[in-house]
């Protein structure tokens, strides 16, 4: 379980997040909405442990461990992973090697890559010259190899074409155990009990809602968690009325 209590975060001397409360239980997936610059990426980076996002108030607890000030690699080892909106290029490091790093050892790189139509990129340097959509697949591939318990997705579908959207949607659903039977499980209601992966997904387009049935939706507005509710309803409200109106109605 991930619990965030009354979190305040500063970035470059400016408060980017405040009064953030969030609780993701094992098996749950949450959707994070919010206009550009509202602090969505900042929240994910703070959970992942990026030091430039300075926590000035509140705490973050994951699996019972207070990780508010823990370094990134400790959080990764504890089971937190992220699919980035804008990951850096690493020259000279092949995507193939990166997948092995994510898996923490030998792994069926070809097989994993095949599932994301990414075989032909394995011998290219990590993110070097990848298109927007290719970066998303590369990030998912890494996350798949890493297989963490809490997955943070920063706009996994932006810039992705229709065909690849289905691939990405299904991959995320599978990662979050949304559509595959867990070993030893019986009917659908039973899957849910065995489901333990947690997800937090940022989306603008809402496409991902068609593939992953999320448990909760929240809207970040000006660095504050402005409303919580049924993700589909929230998305409809944002589409019909815009963020500002939507946030009003929720309050």
């Amino acid at each position, binding site marked *: 379980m991930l619990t965030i209590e009354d979190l305040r975060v500063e970035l470059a001397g400016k408060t980017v997040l405040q009064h953030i409360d969030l609780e993701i239980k094992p098996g749950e997936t949450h959707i994070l909405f919010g206009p550009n610059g509202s602090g969505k990426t900042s929240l994910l980076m703070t959970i*992942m442990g990026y030091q430039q996002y300075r926590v000035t108030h509140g705490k973050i607890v994951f699996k019972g461990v207070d990780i508010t000030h823990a370094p990134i690699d400790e959080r990764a080892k504890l089971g937190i992973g992220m699919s980035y909106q804008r990951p850096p290029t690493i020259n000279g490091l092949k995507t193939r090697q990166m997948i092995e790093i994510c898996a*923490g050892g030998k792994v069926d790189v070809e097989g994993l890559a095949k599932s994301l139509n990414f075989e032909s990129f394995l011998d290219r340097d990590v993110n070097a010259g990848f298109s927007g959509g290719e970066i998303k697949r590369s990030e998912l591939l890494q996350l798949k190899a890493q297989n963490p318990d809490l997955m943070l997705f920063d706009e996994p579908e932006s810039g992705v074409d229709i065909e690849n959207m289905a691939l990405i949607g299904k991959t995320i659903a599978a990662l979050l155990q949304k559509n595959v039977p867990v070993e030893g499980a019986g009917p659908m209601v039973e899957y849910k009990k065995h489901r333990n992966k947690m997800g937090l997904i940022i989306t603008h387009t809402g496409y991902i809602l068609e593939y992953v049935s999320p448990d909760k939706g929240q809207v970040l507005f000006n660095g504050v968690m402005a409303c919580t509710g049924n993700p589909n309803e929230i998305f409809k409200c944002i589409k019909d009325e815009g963020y500002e109106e939507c946030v009003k109605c929720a309050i």
Partner: protein
Amino acid sequence: MRDIDEMKEKALKAVDKKAMFGEDIDLDEYDRAYVPHQYMAEEEICTLPDDVQQRLVMSGLDLSEKERGGTYFQKDTTVVHCHSMEQGIEVIPMKEALEKYDWVKDYFWKLVSVDQDKYTASAYLELHDGYVIRALPGSKSVYPIQACLYLDKEGLQQNVHNLIIAEEGSELHIITGCATAPHMKRGVHVGISEFFVKKNAKLSFTMIHNWAEDMMVRPRSVGRVEEGAVFINNYICMKPVRSIQMYPTTYLDGDNATAMFYSVIVGSPGSDFDVGGRIWLNKTGCRAEIIQRAISNGGRIMNRGHLIGKAPDIKAHLECRGLILKGGIIDSIPQLEGHVEGVDMSHEAAVGKIAQEEITYLMSRGLSADEATSTIVRGFLNIDIKGLPEQLRAEIDRAIEASKEAM
């Protein structure tokens, strides 16, 4: 005979001539006297002490010779092993070649001038030995030929002269490892190398340096590449050395000739590198590429690069990247010179540190900060050298890996 007298005269005049770049060395402080060593049979090389073997392996030598087409091994001033197993490829000690074969004089000192500086002069006046490696027309070597220039005697100045000739349509790969004995600290290595890559031939020459803290090194090499031929020149030095200065130069003298220089240098504290590469693109359709990677752990690295475009439709690129990890200086001096319309020349140079963003990215995939840093450094040094046989590429990677372990 007149020739020889003239050359000797020129050399004598240049014995005090300082080099254009690099710290000046007082050669009088070093011993150049002949050091006798026993010739070794193939199997004897494998019985050398472990620490010696290790130094040789780190310099790219395959002691079993299983994956090599031939071996030249010079210890101090003396040839201790020399033979070729490859059809159509000759490996001959320089002094023997000068005595036995008339054609050698057509190449000897034809590209490097004896009076360039005191080092070339010394190599002319007091030559110890060196190798002649020649691929006959149309011959293709399956395995690389290996050469080792080894220094064992404290305070020695080793004078070596090499000729590398790839005849028309041939393909030749050479790995030269230069190393000092485990106990050795101080000495000088002067190495003259002249490369002749004839029409449609392909030559790859990989040099791996593995010196000691007080070694002074002054290679002098010049290459000439004819029509449609390819010359790949790789240089790797990741070990401490007192001072290395070299500025290998290549003339692309035929249409569509290609030269590629790759270098990987790690500068430890107390090490001083002044390393360059100069390529003349003299005919249409010529291609040249210089790619340099430098890491400073407290050393001083000067990376020079000079491309000269003398004909239309040439393409030349220079890329120099430096990382300062633990102090030191990296000084990158790229130079482009276009002399006619229709040249396409570019360079990019960057000196910096490892991006924090890359470290944190890898940490979020489970690596510690240290592991992330070394992964990025490995990647940085991992240049894609084009046109090398897979086996040779693996060999270079292995040498880089071995040196990185010890970094």
